[in-house]
């Protein structure tokens, strides 16, 4: 599909980002952008700089040089919390859920709703309100679990990941970053989560997807940004590119010049 997003303003963009750790150049003059209504995947071999870029986008690291833009306006995040408050949610690889809490407990973890009035002043939670909103939210995303009253550790891996993704969408007003959301999931469970990610996009929240699993990326992503040795070496579209092309770019067998299509104009 021919991208119509060249005209659109990126929801989140990085311009000319560099990051070094001592003598190691983790990222070199990287540009990145995610547009409204798309799933953009970051792909690259181990050490390509995916994690570093994600950490910069989510406020965990700050870049040495370069700027972050949200809807064209420069922003900087001093902490993950600052990024979250700006509307960027991250789903971490190792499931940052509290397994002993139920689904609403996890959806609202750290941001529990308070009752109104005196009870609210006494820090009392609005358990009923959280439950109702959690249930409505999961239904709207088509996440099927027997009961939201279940503790998360009684759910399947795919269901758990779905809860984690749902949580990020619930709070991520602008962008949701997903770090290896299908790692350690069975085929069926992965399909469940990939379907959910697409529904997240369709519901209007753009997604940044990081995955080692190329078939998953090709299935879910609208666009792929390829990193190699800390540089961006190309942009591919699953609709027109092949996995061989992606692998060639990732490993350097194919030069950065032979991208399938280049639409970026800086």
């Amino acid at each position: 599909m021919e991208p119509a997003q060249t005209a659109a303003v990126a929801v989140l963009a990085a311009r000319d980002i560099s990051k070094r750790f001592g003598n190691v150049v983790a990222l070199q003059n990287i540009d990145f952008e995610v547009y409204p209504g798309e799933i953009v995947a970051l792909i690259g071999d181990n050490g390509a700089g995916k994690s570093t870029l994600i950490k910069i986008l989510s406020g965990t690291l700050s870049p040495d040089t370069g700027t972050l833009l949200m809807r064209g306006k420069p922003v900087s995040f001093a902490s993950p919390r600052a990024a979250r408050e700006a509307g960027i949610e991250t789903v971490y690889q190792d499931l940052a859920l509290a397994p002993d809490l139920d689904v609403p407990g996890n959806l609202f973890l750290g941001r529990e709703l308070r009752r109104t009035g005196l009870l609210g002043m006494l820090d009392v939670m609005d358990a009923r309100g959280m439950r109702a909103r959690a249930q409505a939210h999961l239904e709207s995303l088509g996440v099927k679990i027997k009961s939201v009253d279940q503790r998360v550790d009684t759910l399947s891996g795919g269901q758990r990941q779905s809860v984690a993704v749902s949580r990020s969408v619930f709070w991520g007003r602008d962008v949701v970053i997903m770090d290896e959301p299908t790692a350690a999931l069975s085929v069926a469970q992965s399909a469940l989560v990939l379907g959910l990610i697409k529904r997240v996009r369709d519901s209007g929240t753009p997604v940044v997807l990081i995955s080692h699993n190329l078939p998953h990326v090709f299935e879910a992503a609208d666009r792929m940004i390829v990193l190699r040795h800390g540089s961006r070496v190309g942009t591919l579209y699953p609709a027109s590119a092949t996995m061989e092309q992606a692998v060639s770019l990732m490993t350097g067998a194919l030069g950065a010049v032979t991208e399938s299509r280049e639409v970026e104009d800086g």
Partner: protein
Amino acid sequence: MTGAPADTRAPGRPRLSWDVALRLGLLGIVIVLAIVFTIAAPGFLSSQNLENNERQMAVIGILAIGETFVIITAGIDLSVGSMLGFCGILMALALSHGIAIPVALVAVLAIAALLGFFNGVLIDTAALPPFIVTLGMLGILRGFTQIFGNGQQIGFGNSAFTDFAADNFLGVPKLFWVLVVIALGAAFVLHLTRRGRHVFAIGSNLEGARRAGINVRAMTFLVYAISGLLAGIAGLLLTARQAQGDPNAGTGYELDAIAAAVLGGASLFGARGSILGTFLGVLLVQILTNGLNLLNFDPQVARIVEGALLIAFVYIDHWRKRRLATA
């Protein structure tokens, strides 16, 4: 596109029924023990014996409530027994020097909360294991207690203080009312408030809680300060009851506090436990100790049973956790 709303009351919520079963099972054991002792030990239901039990239960119960907060964060506080003794001696010394009760009370409890807070600082900020920090504190506080008390009981002629421990309110010892009020307050905080929820979240997934924006550091300080404060209160109550400061008071009480919490469903792996469960656990420990005592068993038998029960319950909890992990 979703048609009928999903069935939210689907059957088969195994974890919930496990918790309920555990609570009911515990209640069952308590009732059975009470019946057995009522039949076998004539004095068991006498009002004097009941009152004694209630007073003793108040002291252990308040310790165990503090311990429950700590255990739910997947921590442990071994210093509660020593804290109890330390605060008892401080109070006895203060009163024997003629310091007014309210002043002494506030000062001693402030010290208790501060020492608990310091446990929290060492655990969170210095990243030391709770087991080691509070074991060290156990030794330190007991040592100071013996030095301050000069190894001896300290009397103080303050009848207003000791009367409180002897008096009843509505036919129930005032000490027991203190336990009831603290238990209700603790249950409110732990089960209904956001901060209470954060205590569970920390015990369930420390890093996840941190990433979710929960102030793990402040909560750790708070939880250990609560445990210290409650141990201090227990120390004051025991001192009032014994009408003297005893440098050996509270020795070994950490076993009672931990056992009561664990028998009541608190998991040493964290994120599990309740004030009601702990209350039942204290009841079980108290009835067991008292009943065996009335039946003329060596007092140490109760400790043997208590220790064995603690190990058995932790084993069951471990088994449950492993089964869940492989499920």
